[in-house]
């Protein structure tokens, strides 16, 4: 059973300049536990695909199921709920709240999930521990390095136990050494069973993924498995 199922996914923008087909007839399945890199030049539709997969946008036509939920039928509140529970976002620019310490940033998704303060604190600390930043819980973003900030962002993405981690150029703002550390962290998380979809135009980053999907002009031009789906993750899925 695939975590992500898209069927004839199509997204058309009505701009002043005319209609732009950003995504055309994309039908893909992504399994639980997989680590997928989505690549392509700008304007290829990869960002549009990511917005749709991330439930930030709805397809013009076509179907999208995420964790057995028909996304195209949801209203704004339903999408918010789905994002909150099933998706963790990691952005190129980290997007941490500057006035709030690392712990507070990690707590944010749980605020909207309605957890009480104590539970939030506990889980946020645990998530920070998972990315190796338990000691920096009370540092503000300004007091952290770029790599540390991205780790905080990853902890935030993980904290609600989502079924999908969606990363958009997560290493784009980092130097190559830090970028490697972050990629190592993604691989580690994937080994622990987290499904990851990573959008990048960096071939080096793409190499780390188990499956590579290439977009061009709104269509999938290449879908290539680099590493078989982790056997343990499959076993865990079977056990569930």
């Amino acid at each position, binding site marked *: 059973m695939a975590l992500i199922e898209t069927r004839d996914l199509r997204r058309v923008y009505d701009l002043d300049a005319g209609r732009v087909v950003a995504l055309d007839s994309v039908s893909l399945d992504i399994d639980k536990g997989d680590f997928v890199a989505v690549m392509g030049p700008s304007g290829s539709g990869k960002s549009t695909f990511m917005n749709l997969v991330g439930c930030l946008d709805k397809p013009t036509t076509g179907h999208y199921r995420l964790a057995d939920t028909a996304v195209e039928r949801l209203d*704004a509140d339903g999408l918010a709920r789905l994002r909150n529970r099933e998706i963790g*976002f990691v952005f190129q620019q980290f997007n941490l709240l500057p006035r709030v310490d690392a712990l507070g940033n990690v707590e*944010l998704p749980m*605020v909207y999930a309605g957890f009480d303060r104590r539970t939030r604190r506990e889980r946020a600390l645990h998530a920070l521990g998972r990315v190796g930043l338990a000691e920096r819980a009370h540092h503000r973003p300004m007091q952290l390095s770029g790599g540390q900030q991205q780790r905080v962002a990853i902890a935030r993405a993980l904290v609600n136990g989502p079924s999908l981690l969606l990363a958009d150029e997560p290493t784009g703002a980092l130097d190559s050494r830090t970028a490697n550390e972050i990629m190592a962290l993604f691989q580690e998380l994937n080994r622990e069973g987290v499904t990851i979809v990573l959008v990048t135009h960096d071939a080096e980053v793409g190499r780390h993924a188990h499956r590579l999907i290439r977009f061009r002009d709104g269509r999938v031009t290449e879908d290539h498995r680099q590493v078989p789906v982790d056997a343990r993750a499959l076993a865990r899925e079977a056990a569930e």
Partner: protein
Amino acid sequence: MRLIEAIRSAFSAIAANALRSLLTMLGIVIGVAAVIAMVAIGSGARNLVDQQIRSLGANLAIVTPGNVTQGGARLGAGAASSLTDDDAHAIRREVDGVVAAAPFVQGGAQVVAGGSNWATRIYGIDRDWFSAREWDVATGRTFDPEEVRRGDIVILLGQTVARNLFGEDDPIDQIVRVRNVPFRVIGVMASKGQSAFGQDQDDVVFVPLDAGRRRVIGRNYAKDGSVGSIFVKFADESDIEPGIASMTELLRQRHRITGEQEDDFSIRNLTEIANTASASANTLSMLLAAVAAVSLLVGGIGIMNIMLVSVTERTREIGLRLAVGARPRDILSQFLIEATTLSTIGGALGIGLGAGAAYLVAQLAGWPSLVSTNAIIVAVGFSALVGIFFGFYPAQRAARLDPIEALRRE
């Protein structure tokens, strides 16, 4: 998101831009301070008026003799002595809602006690006076019915008179002379303070009506039991208007005035006079409130402006919040709460400032001032409303942001 947390996060957002927030609040601060100070001073002034109304006695009308024509010359109002004890008794008996009808005569007199003397007003009254004017003795007793009926030479002193004649000594059972008539002091009246017109109401003495008429206040009161004026007290304010109409009819009948003939008396509604004073105090308050409302409006526009700036500045934050699962209404309430918190803090500061200003005015100008709980509640409520009203548009703009656009914004 829980309200408490929303408020906490609003506080931190406000604190992050402390100076800007303070400047934004300033409009509200000044508006609320103006409301509080003005209402305090206004209600203090109204209180003073109320107090003076109460010192006169509530629900009161006064019947005075009308003008009279003597040898072709029309003498002024009150020149006639057309009213009598019996008129008062008839009013008490026959007019609905009348609880007391106090006929009285008045004049000036020099009161002598031992070595000291004092010029004051002297009133000849009956027992209805005390209930009509809501005025009792502080020490001693009032006239008993027999004393009034016989016109005994007993006297009640006002506080001012008692103090001037006897100082600290107890005047009860002392003898004072008025026009050489020795009156025995049986009581000292409670203090009434100043009247609405600035007179010292305690500078007065009272004697039984007949004693006054026959012995001290000459004129022609002595004959046929005529009196100067009659205070009429009604049970309720709503009784006054119909009461005055039936009194007019009754007195015209009793005085045999028919058809087109002019009344030989006039009746004034004293409560109405007091109400007019109170109404003008109200008008002043309303005017001040209008000024304050304008400054609250300006303050609200300031808040709207700064919230719009804030929404623009924090577009990425909004995008992120939406991405991690905030619903549009969570964003709406976040910014509404922020605007409301801003305006309410402004309101609280304004209350402090306004109360301080009112206190200062009270101290410096000697005006009474009264910071009422109501004014505080209204001010806080109003400033919160200003926040909600003027925060709504910016908050709605924030809530309607497209998360993808918002996240892309630099």
